[in-house]
């Protein structure tokens, strides 16, 4: 059976799932703790960084051998960081579910089904996982937009959403450091997703791919800050959950609490992100072991499961993000930005002929190996599927 390759719209949703999954915890509280009302400046700065990465990202991986090696090294580092971070996020998610919804259910029970589902979806051959993500993420995003739209009824404080009169640089930079962990998945996701697309996504598509998650983060910030204000926000451990949990629509006909909608969207959304991250690991493993790469999700989700259990509480998970992950990540992000900038300046553009072959519309029938799939791993793209 021939598969239709991914279009640029699918790339947008894949990037959205991947980036947002790691950005639902920790930051709203801690950037406000670090920068106060100037947290919005931090958001803008990190948004600009994301846009720069998206624009500088190479459209394809068919580069000269040296650059290919450099990018592969970068991807391996990035994916390693994402895999470590995800264990912390699984712990945060199960901790959140236990704190607010399933008080007596053990955390491992809450994380197991999600991880099993993510792993089994990621191990499906060909483009099936991408199709799952491209179908569900827009639906979940629409749900999230409805939830956020309703939540705007609780936004009463507009003044703290504006920057303070006095802008202190150090707290703003410190707050940007808090957000660093979200940046791990940005570049590597865009590189991988665009290498699987039928057409290399244009700069405009890449820009949209990064702007949608940025806009989403801004909306989350507006809801949390506008509802609670800077002083109350830093006193709750889960500001987003706190705010979304208290949105009521008692005056409407049948929908009074949106909590169940929030939790469904949140959990399934994170599952979608985990699928993308598992595919990332398959991708980098296939650099060296293309045949066994398909099974990578089993050890990775196993690690997430064990790792999330070893982290004793959501508070401990937050401390790991802030004190262990955040200090290291800026080194990677800085290196990534430099390499991307250098590649734009010094890397020779691929020959037009090669570009032509990369736009083949059918990636792989059984056994057929194309120009594109020889330059990358065959496994995650699904070449060899249908056997």
């Amino acid at each position: 059976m021939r598969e239709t390759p991914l279009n640029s719209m699918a790339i947008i949703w894949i990037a959205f799932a991947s980036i947002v999954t790691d950005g639902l915890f920790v930051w709203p509280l801690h950037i406000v703790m670090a920068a106060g009302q100037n947290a919005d400046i931090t958001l803008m700065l990190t948004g600009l960084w994301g846009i720069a990465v998206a624009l500088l990202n190479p459209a394809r991986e068919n580069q000269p051998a040296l650059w290919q090696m450099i990018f592969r090294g970068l991807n391996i580092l990035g994916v390693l960081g994402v895999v470590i971070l995800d264990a912390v996020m699984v712990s945060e998610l199960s901790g959140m579910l236990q704190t607010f919804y399933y008080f007596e259910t053990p955390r491992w029970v809450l994380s197991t089904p999600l991880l099993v589902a993510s792993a089994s979806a990621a191990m499906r051959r060909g483009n099936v996982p991408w199709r799952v993500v491209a179908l569900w993420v827009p639906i979940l995003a629409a749900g999230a937009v409805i939830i956020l739209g309703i939540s705007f009824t609780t936004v009463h404080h507009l003044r703290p959403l504006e920057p303070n009169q006095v802008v202190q640089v150090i707290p703003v930079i410190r707050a940007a450091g808090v957000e660093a962990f979200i940046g791990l998945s940005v570049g590597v996701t865009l590189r991988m997703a665009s290498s699987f697309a039928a057409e290399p996504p244009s700069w405009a598509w890449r820009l949209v791919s990064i702007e949608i998650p940025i806009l989403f983060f801004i909306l989350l910030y507006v809801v949390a800050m506008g509802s609670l204000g800077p002083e109350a926000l830093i006193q709750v451990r889960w500001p987003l959950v706190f705010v979304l949990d208290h949105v009521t629509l008692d005056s409407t006909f049948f929908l009074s609490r949106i909590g169940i909608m929030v939790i469904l969207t949140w959990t399934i959304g994170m599952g979608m992100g985990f699928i993308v991250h598992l595919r990332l690991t398959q991708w980098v493993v296939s650099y060296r072991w293309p045949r066994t790469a398909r099974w990578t999700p089993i050890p990775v989700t196993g690690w997430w499961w064990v790792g999330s259990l070893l982290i004793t509480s959501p508070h401990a998970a937050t401390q790991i993000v802030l004190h262990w992950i955040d200090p290291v990540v800026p080194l990677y992000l800085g290196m990534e930005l430099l390499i991307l900038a250098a590649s734009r300046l010094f890397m020779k553009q691929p020959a037009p002929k090669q570009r032509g072959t990369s736009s083949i519309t059918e990636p792989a029938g059984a056994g057929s190996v194309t120009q594109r799939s020889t330059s990358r791993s065959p496994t995650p793209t699904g070449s060899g599927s249908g056997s």
Partner: protein
Amino acid sequence: MRAWRWVRGTLATLLLGTSLTGCWDQHPVEFRAPVAGISVDPTREPDQYDFTFLFPNVTVTASSIATIPPSEQFYSISVQAPTLTKAIDSVQRRQSRALYLGQIRILCMSSRLPLKVWTSTLQETADSGRFVMTFWVLTSPDARKALEITPPSEVVPDVALYRALNSRIQPVLWPGRGWRIWAEMATPGISPAVMEVHPTGQQVALHQLAVLSPHGILLWSTTETDGWAYAVGRVQRTTETVMVGNQPDSVGLIRGHAQTRVVQTPNGVTVQLHLRCSGVVVGGMMGQGDSIAMDRQVEKRTADLIQQKVVAAWHEAVVTHTDPMGFHRLGHWSDANIDDNVANWSGWTLETQVRFTLREEGVLR
């Protein structure tokens, strides 16, 4: 290969089926006791408080509601405890069903309680994760009595006070949503305010604002309460009576919007309050002709009255060293040099500008 798929599918289904159903947290509704409201009153002992938990009587079925008197539709359990958490524990020991705290409608705190008890009780509800803080916080001299009032019009599981505050039927959008009161307690620069409940017979009435201050719970008069409502833009369908000539005229369906700026000036801090209100003439102008001049007079008189009420609220705030309008909070957010201590009103001045317009003509003219 097929067998493996089958095994995998079965395993996944079993795993998802057993864990997603949340067996650990499974409590059938007949084993649950949803708490509809909690009241807190002081006792003779200093660190012991009287907690009353109100439960809807779940044995009342839809078919028997008509025959059962209101007094039997709810039941309550009272305990003495130092904190809310201990009280929950204590009530659970007296209750054969699992307490469920996600449906609490009302938290009624006695106005005789010190502020620290208010703060600690709200903090415990916020910390626990089991409360959904969409309940309304109210105050009354006798909190238990106010909680247990069930007007004949209400049947289980509705709580009259919750319905009164929740549906937008009141002349003013009253304050007191649990999570917002908690946020105000956590934010310097605002004195949290809730509504005081006057139980009269089997009815309840909401007239006066109760402002939380370190010196106790301060009741504001109805004029000051109205002034507060105008100043924070929470008026949605109130009524005022103004004198035009010798004739009292009624203006109704008044709604308003407040735009506030707090700025630092060389002389101190100035609150610039711009109110835009509108309403409808609802009576009293019979036989006075239909002149534009008369409408302008009504508008002017109403604007003056609103301004007087806002000034009355301002003076009360200054005298009692409180700030339920949150001017200090806004000032501090706008300019970090402005003090967020609500007791400090020295150097503060108020500039109000009220614009009132008549929206429609009404039925009688």
